[in-house]
């Protein structure tokens, strides 16, 4: 049985933990709103881009001279995994679940005798992966010093990836991130970005029999479009990641706050019992002392 003093200290400490988690939860809720807003604002661009690409890719499919970014290198030997996670913890299993998905993929690819290279985006993913696969990480980046992720950061990552592709350093690139399904559900997702997968289920406008006029010709447009499409995909993944991180953080902190509340109740009960027991004990001592006289 802990002493009254010890119980009192523990209650005080759990109370301050509760205050911290509560504050963190509210911060996450505010940030989540902003992140969702940004994700929504970027959607029109992505959707349009997908529409345009679907259109072009359909006509370039049978073209043997299609750019390598669409067609692939023809090999399937070296895989590049881009693992995007958050820079901060305190968001439940968010980072770990992305890393776990990536790790399963690494094990599978290595089992098939393929070479794996890793790029980590965000500090947490790097921390978790470098222990096991430190020698596979070819590049890492994080946004610790950036307040708000913009298209510029996405472009930086994309241009790094593209220059590696041009140098023939990998055949297939896959992006890992936490897709934001809803506030309570974030799904770790793997998405292949190189060779580009033409988006499916995109509605292409009915041209009413007219033929597209391309200026310059289709190939040149496709060549200019594909690197941008890669950047757009990275950008979307980063935005979704931010939203997912905040959502995960919010629910993790909500749980923590509730747990702290339960613990305070339990400890207070224990404290009151101990206090009563002590009073009873003192009373018995006084009474039995008086009887003895």
């Amino acid at each position, binding site marked *: 049985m802990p002493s009254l003093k010890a119980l009192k200290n523990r209650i005080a400490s759990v109370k301050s933990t509760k205050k911290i988690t509560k504050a963190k939860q509210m911060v996450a809720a505010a940030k989540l709103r902003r992140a969702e807003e940004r994700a929504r604002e970027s959607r029109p661009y992505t959707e349009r*881009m997908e529409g345009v690409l679907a259109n072009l890719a359909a006509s370039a499919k049978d073209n043997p001279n299609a750019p390598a970014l669409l067609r692939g290198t023809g090999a399937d030997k070296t895989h590049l995994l881009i693992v995007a996670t958050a820079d901060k913890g305190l968001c439940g299993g968010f980072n770990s679940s992305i890393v776990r998905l990536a790790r399963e993929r690494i094990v599978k690819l290595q089992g098939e005798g393929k070479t794996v290279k890793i790029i980590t985006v965000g500090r947490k993913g790097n921390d978790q992966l470098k222990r096991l696969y430190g020698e596979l990480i070819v590049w890492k980046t994080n946004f610790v010093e950036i307040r708000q992720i913009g298209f510029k950061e996405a472009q930086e990552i994309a241009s790094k990836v593209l220059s590696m592709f041009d140098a023939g350093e990998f055949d297939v690139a896959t992006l890992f991130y936490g897709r934001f399904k809803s506030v309570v559900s974030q799904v770790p997702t793997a998405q292949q970005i190189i060779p580009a997968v033409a988006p499916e289920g995109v509605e292409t406008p009915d041209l009413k029999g007219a*033929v*597209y*006029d*391309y200026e310059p010709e289709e190939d040149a447009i496709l060549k200019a479009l594909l690197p941008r499409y890669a950047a757009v995909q990275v950008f979307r993944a980063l935005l979704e990641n931010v939203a997912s991180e905040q959502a995960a953080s919010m629910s993790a902190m909500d749980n923590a706050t509730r747990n702290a509340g339960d613990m305070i109740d339990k400890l207070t009960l224990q404290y009151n019992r101990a206090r009563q027991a002590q009073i009873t004990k003192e009373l018995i001592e006084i009474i039995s002392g008086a009887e003895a006289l």
Partner: protein
Amino acid sequence: MADKLHFNLVSPEKELFSGDVDMVEAPGVEGAFGVLPNHAPFMTVLLPGVVKVKTGGDEKRIFVRGGFAEVTPLGLTILAEEAIPVADLSRDMIAERIKNAEQDLADADATLETKLAAETTLTRMKELQAAL
């Protein structure tokens, strides 16, 4: 003016313009072009420059840094990498871009493509600077 052109201008970070207009002028890679309602399906790459949006007697000018324009029967869509209304553009910003482009051009390691891109940007930005 029964017919209007539906025009969308989107950048990765947000949608800048969406609505019905009379005419849009944009800087295409093979020359500037104008789009009126009922234009044939058409697609082109854009150079950095100013997009002019005309509605009635009103003209809106928006600077875009590269991107794509697509005309479908539904209207015109411009996917800009970056778009800033000309009114919000400052001389300092342009000067900075000119400096960046000059640096790229002076960079000995840069590939031919980067240099070409930098040179185009440089010319376009200087034109813009003169126009302001």
